[in-house]
């Protein structure tokens, strides 16, 4: 990776951290558990990396590792979103 490209990535990282802090401090304590399970779900974004690893042409060690990564990341995505929805469904007004 060229240094300029790395700098752009760093910009994105720093700005994303600030957005994260701003948005998440507004989440009320009542919803902190769904926040955690929901962030489990979005940290399943590593599925994107896993898909790339598993998707390359021939089947070898790299693609098999990628495939195992897909399994764990998908558990996070599907499990995380489903359980978050299960919880949020219960929060009702009188």
């Amino acid at each position, binding site marked *: 990776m060229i240094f300029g490209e*790395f700098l752009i990535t760093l910009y994105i990282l720093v700005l994303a*951290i600030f957005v994260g802090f701003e948005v*998440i401090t507004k989440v009320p304590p009542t919803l902190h558990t769904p*926040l955690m399970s929901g962030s489990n779900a979005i940290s399943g*974004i590593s599925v994107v*990396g896993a898909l*790339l690893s598993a998707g390359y042409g021939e*089947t070898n060690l790299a693609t098999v590792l990628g495939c195992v990564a897909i399994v764990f990341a998908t558990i996070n995505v599907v*499990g995380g979103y489903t359980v978050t929805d299960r919880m949020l469904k219960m*929060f009702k007004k009188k």
Partner: protein
Amino acid sequence: MRENIIYISYLISAVLFILGLKMLSHPKTARNGNFLSAFGMLIAICATLFERNVINYQLIIIGIILGSAIGAFLAVTVKMTEMPQMVGLLNGYGGLASALVVVSEYVRLYPTPTLYEISTILITLVIGLITFSGSLVAYGKLQGIVTGQPVTYPFQKTLNLLQFFVIVTGAIFLFMHPEHILWAGVICAISFSLGIFLVLPIGGADMPVVVALLNSYSGMAACAAGFALSNYALIVTGALVGASGMILTRIMCKAMNRSLTNVMFGAFGKVEASATAATNGKAKSVQGYSVDDAQIVLENANEVIIVPGYGLAVAQAQHNLRELADMLEAKGVEVKYAIHPVAGRMPGHMNVLLAEANVPYEKLYEMDQINTEFERADVALVVGANDVTNPAAKNNPGSPIYGMPILDVDKAKTIIFLKRSMAAGFAGIENELFYLPKTMMIFGDAKKTVVDMVNVLK
């Protein structure tokens, strides 16, 4: 062209994740926010499948079906009381997935990864595997497979430092000779064991902090993997999760008046023994009251504030408690719930448990909102909580919980404690409230007592 479409899709996903989190700022919009976020994930996955290099679809489909089935099964069957374990486990899987992705990347680039590639791969590997093994231990502690007591052993810090030193040495060596797969293996193994050794000495009571911290680490691992793969979707999303976990960790530490270092290396439970022994010396008597006594007080109250603790969930009495509250409201009593940040076993846990019992969310009040209200309340009904009401946190500098923010239950006109026995609370400290003349202690199983109260009120 194809690349551009993929990158724009990732941008849309990132925006949808942020909007989803933003909509979590209110229970009314939260559920739709979760849908939006899930839709963002779908876009990211579809866009990736569109990538030119992705041609091997068999493995992908098998992986996705297997992962979805396991994930859905876990999500549907988990009990709300077990939510901390579930989140703990998912943190671990997130860390493991990121680690596996970079191992795969290392294998693919072998034997000539560049310095940038090998360093980002190693950082991801270390964070990811610490998250994975640490989460497994946290899961074990919460589930009761591993002892909840802090496990201490001689040369604990030295051993951890040594492991850290091996990791750093191995990393420097790999920077120079990235093809030495043995060293990569050693780093993996030591990272895994370091995660175990770091979490094992932390007591069960501190697991909420650990789970929040590991939540943050799982995000950082994804973020680091993003650097390794030059993938913006992973970087942005990982940063969001990392920030979220950090905020929650800070909130939990503040609620217990402990620093993160103290939680990580303090082995809290160890202090308890001496504190209990010291206070047990003075013999004080406590008067037990009956359910009928409580009924008279409750019925004549204008405002009742319920203070639930984890003992409520252990006794599975949430539904009965809500029934009791409904009956009081039918008699014109105003009922509110005061939720201490560490009332459950993870941030916001008690709120979920009460929501499950159909308690409307607008009746749940945070500590800061409700503390001024106690002086106006006729009754504070404490169910299965103890330490979070203990005035020793305010007026006894010698107490282990001194400085911890508490619910000002002592300001209420009458305090009713539902308690299993006179045993001290989680932190093993006596509560002087039990001996006040305005306090009514009702001993017994929380569920049975609440059911009796409901029957008496009928």
